[in-house]
């Protein structure tokens, strides 16, 4: 294990929800980012508006790792309710900073750490008169103290504070005063900076800090979505918030002031599903953001869209289930649900973005694939990707992009059609042309979720029914080469072990893989990005004697899907499961794989 060092350590702030600490913590992270040092930020928050414990973790990683570390080196303990837990989490040799307005003798129970007391409340109560601002300024005061300890650039902090209060300029001096209080106290009373600290670098040029939900919303705008419907649910709400914000900025006709989009807040997820199916059937690019509970409710309509072949785009920002579960904690627990959502024989196209950059790209992919294959497409993200700010390369757009609207017959094409048959595959690609209402008298057809034959007529005849659902299966299979291809990271030499993961596990898995290889265990890594699985997935599994499947759920859902949908046997696959609700860290992955190798003697 490496110890903390310059530009390589983790700081964590423990606060109380609703005390305004989020902006102070964002300020700390952004300061480090603007100093040119890569960061990984994780907000661990409660399902609550005010009063419950919340944490913000910032990993400072000049090497640019994308996952969590798993240790904490500087703990800013601002919440007496969680002192015990926060104290225990600190790595040996770590530093704990707390509000020493009231003495806390329990910190003396850890002789292996350094405890620094700053009388934050006392200083702020003296300097500020209004009760609420005393609470808020306490946050800025710990920012100041941390800045001194980590040698953060005060000019960068000042610049960020000025941007933060650009609309309320008169708040700037008070906030900077609070920063100075903490900073000066630390300088005067402790030996600053710490051994592990931040040193300006140039590793963040061309990068942005953005959360996955905002990036997905931008993807919907750039992908040409014009209709969105949703029922508010944590953690997906910010997808629609983002879409609404960017549409208001970018999609209102300058002359008429009229909107070129429509957003409807539905009465529940069933309605949200019906709304987007209706809009898509009528030719609008439509989507709904939701989370696992929403998918449960939408399932009947998902089956309808699958069987009647209507495009449907669902953003599932996964949270910890079943039932209400832990709505603000992260998991990959809807893998099986989304692969086969709804009753009867159903199977869907699923995309697995791993970071906000892929959220942007795959939102566009999802819109294209849904229309091309005339079927539901799931975009399977999670809280970690969706609600944390990630450092990624600045998003770019190819102006030559043309949306893939799939086979939609125009009025001119329908003019020559004698009789249009909605479900007739005329060219062997398993996809039948569709028509939009109102286009042409020759284009009428009846959309039905009841049994239908290839001509679109009602049927209860077995062979006619089978013919249609067999085509649906072939259509789905053919999507394997259309979903984003898997990406691999191979060991330098021959590796007996493989490693498979999806989505937000990527950063931690890549770091663990590199460390395993460095310690003499070469491992090849494949990150799957879409379902149905391409042949590459099968080949990858068979090229290794054992494959570790790392995922964030209890039931090894991805592993199960691999057993069901590839020729892999269950014996070839070894589950590595993380389902506490916290984002995955590399130490867990590395330790789990090392342990599995030792226990099974498979090295």
């Amino acid at each position, binding site marked *: 294990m490496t110890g903390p060092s310059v530009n390589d350590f983790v700081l964590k702030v423990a606060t109380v929800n609703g005390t305004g600490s989020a902006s102070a913590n964002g300020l700390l992270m952004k300061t480090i980012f603007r100093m040119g040092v890569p960061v990984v930020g994780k907000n661990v928050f409660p399902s609550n508006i005010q009063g419950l414990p919340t944490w913000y973790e910032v990993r400072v990683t000049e090497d640019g790792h994308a996952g969590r570390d798993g240790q904490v080196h500087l703990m800013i303990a601002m919440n007496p309710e969680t002192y015990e837990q926060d104290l225990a989490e600190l790595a040996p040799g770590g530093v704990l900073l707390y509000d020493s307005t009231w003495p806390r003798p329990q910190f003396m129970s850890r002789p292996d750490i350094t405890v620094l007391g700053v009388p934050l409340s006392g200083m702020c109560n003296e300097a500020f008169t209004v009760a609420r601002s005393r609470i808020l300024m306490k946050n800025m005061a710990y920012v100041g103290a941390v800045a001194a300890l980590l040698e953060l650039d005060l000019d960068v902090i000042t610049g960020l504070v000025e941007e933060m209060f650009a609309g309320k300029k008169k708040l700037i001096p008070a906030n900077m005063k609070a920063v100075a209080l903490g900073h000066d106290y630390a300088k005067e009373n402790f030996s600053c900076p710490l051994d592990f600290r931040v040193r300006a670098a140039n590793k963040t040029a061309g990068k942005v800090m953005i959360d996955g939900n905002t990036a997905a919303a931008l993807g919907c705008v*750039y992908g040409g979505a014009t209709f969105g419907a949703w029922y508010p649910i944590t953690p997906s709400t910010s997808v629609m918030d983002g879409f609404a914000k960017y549409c208001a900025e970018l999609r209102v*006709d300058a002359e008429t002031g009229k909107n070129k989009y429509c957003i409807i807040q539905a009465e529940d997820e069933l309605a949200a599903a*019906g709304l987007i199916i*209706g*809009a898509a059937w*009528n030719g609008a690019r439509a989507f709904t953001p939701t989370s696992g509970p929403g998918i449960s409710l939408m399932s009947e309509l998902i089956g309808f869209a699958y069987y009647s072949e209507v495009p449907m785009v669902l953003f599932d920002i996964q949270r910890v289930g079943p039932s209400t579960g832990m709505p603000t904690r992260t998991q990959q627990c809807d893998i099986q649900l989304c692969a086969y959502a709804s009753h009867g024989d159903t199977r869907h196209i699923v995309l697995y973005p791993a970071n906000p950059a892929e959220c942007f790209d795959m939102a566009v992919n999802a819109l294209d694939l849904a229309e091309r294959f005339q079927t539901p497409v799931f975009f399977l993200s999670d809280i970690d990707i969706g609600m944390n700010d990630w450092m990624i390369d600045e998003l770019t757009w190819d102006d030559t992009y043309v949306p893939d609207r799939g086979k939609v017959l125009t009025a001119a094409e329908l003019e020559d059609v004698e009789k249009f048959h909605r479900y007739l595959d005329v060219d062997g690609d398993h996809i039948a042309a569709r028509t939009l209402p109102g286009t042409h008298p020759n284009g009428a057809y*009846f959309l039905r979720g009841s049994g239908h034959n290839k001509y679109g007529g009602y049927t209860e005849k077995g062979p006619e029914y089978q013919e249609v659902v067999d085509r649906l299966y072939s259509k789905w299979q053919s999507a394997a080469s259309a979903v984003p291809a898997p990406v691999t990271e191979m060991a330098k030499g021959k590796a007996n072990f493989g490693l498979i993961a999806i989505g937000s596990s990527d950063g931690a898995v890549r770091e663990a893989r590199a460390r395993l290889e460095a310690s003499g265990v070469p491992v090849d890594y494949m990150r799957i990005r879409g379902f149905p699985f391409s042949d590459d997935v099968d080949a990858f599994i068979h090229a290794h004697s054992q494959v570790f499947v790392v995922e964030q759920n209890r039931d090894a859902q991805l592993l199960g899907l691999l057993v069901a949908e590839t020729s892999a046997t269950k014996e070839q696959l070894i589950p590595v499961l993380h389902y506490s609700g916290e984002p995955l860290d590399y130490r867990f992955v590395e330790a789990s794989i090392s342990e599995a190798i030792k226990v099974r003697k498979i090295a």
Partner: protein
Amino acid sequence: MTSFVKPKIRRKNEPLNALGLARGDYDGAMSTLCAGCGHDSVTAAMARAFYELSVEPHRAVKVSGIGCSSKTTTYFLSDAHGANTVHGRMPSFATGAAAANSALTYIGVSGDGDSLSIGLGQLAHAMRRNVNMLYMLENNGVYGLTKGQFSASADIGSTAKKGATNDQAPIDPVALALSVGASFIGRSFSGDREQLVPLIKAGLMHKGFALIDVISPCVSFNDHKGSTKSYAHTYEYYHKAVHADYVPPSAEIKAAYDEGDTLPVELHDGGKINLRKLDKDYDPTDRAAAFSRIMSSQDKDEILTGLLYIDQSRPDMHARENMEERPLNEIPYAELNPGSDRLKSLQQEFR
């Protein structure tokens, strides 16, 4: 259960509408409902209304949920797109479809089970949104396809075919619609074509959500003595309050009725709905009074029919959402793509 193609036969000297289409051009597949089903009369009335309004068949959209009534969307306007969706979920599908293209005419067909039990929430919210569509609620108080269970519109004291008595309060779609803000509310009877056809026409032309609750008896499971949704019971307690006639913009308005009894309501397309008061005490533009009267007629078993409420001033969903007239599905992508330069500049806030 299979639907049959009905041959189209054009008769000599058959009257044609403004598009040169005959009434038969608005037909669909042959009905597979029971002989004498009220729904078939409603289907005929809907087809006639579209014919008389000279709506191009392919510019109409028919949507339905699940149930006997929902099947009827295949029995008229075979040249229109239709969608037989999911039980109780037609309103959301219709709302999404209407949002994508406001230039088409939308008609939803549903029943009392589809609308008032499994789909009650969706119906209420479509009315709140004032989606521009006509929603036909073919109301027979019973589940037909599953063989005769009471629906949520069954009246207290009404008996089932096998003898059970309903003791739960009914949901009255008209009262519901009034309370949640529908802007056009009517009630009629499948056996009263004279009232129903003009009412459907007015509902189709009204800009906003139009609900017509049509008593449409189920001959197989709810047409016996003791049922309050039977033909006999409906005829006995039928009370006409306000007759509605749609007058297109171009037509000359004839003073067919006594001046004091008619009330013209201006529509957005320049046409009018002429309201003829058959009950002098009823004012279909006074929401509170209408509600009071509807409640009191329930108490005396009176089936109050006609156009029971209209409000042309409420903006429909498109207006409220400040949407362009142009359908969403016709906006070229070039107008939707903000471009790569803009993507670069808007990421300033993420630095």
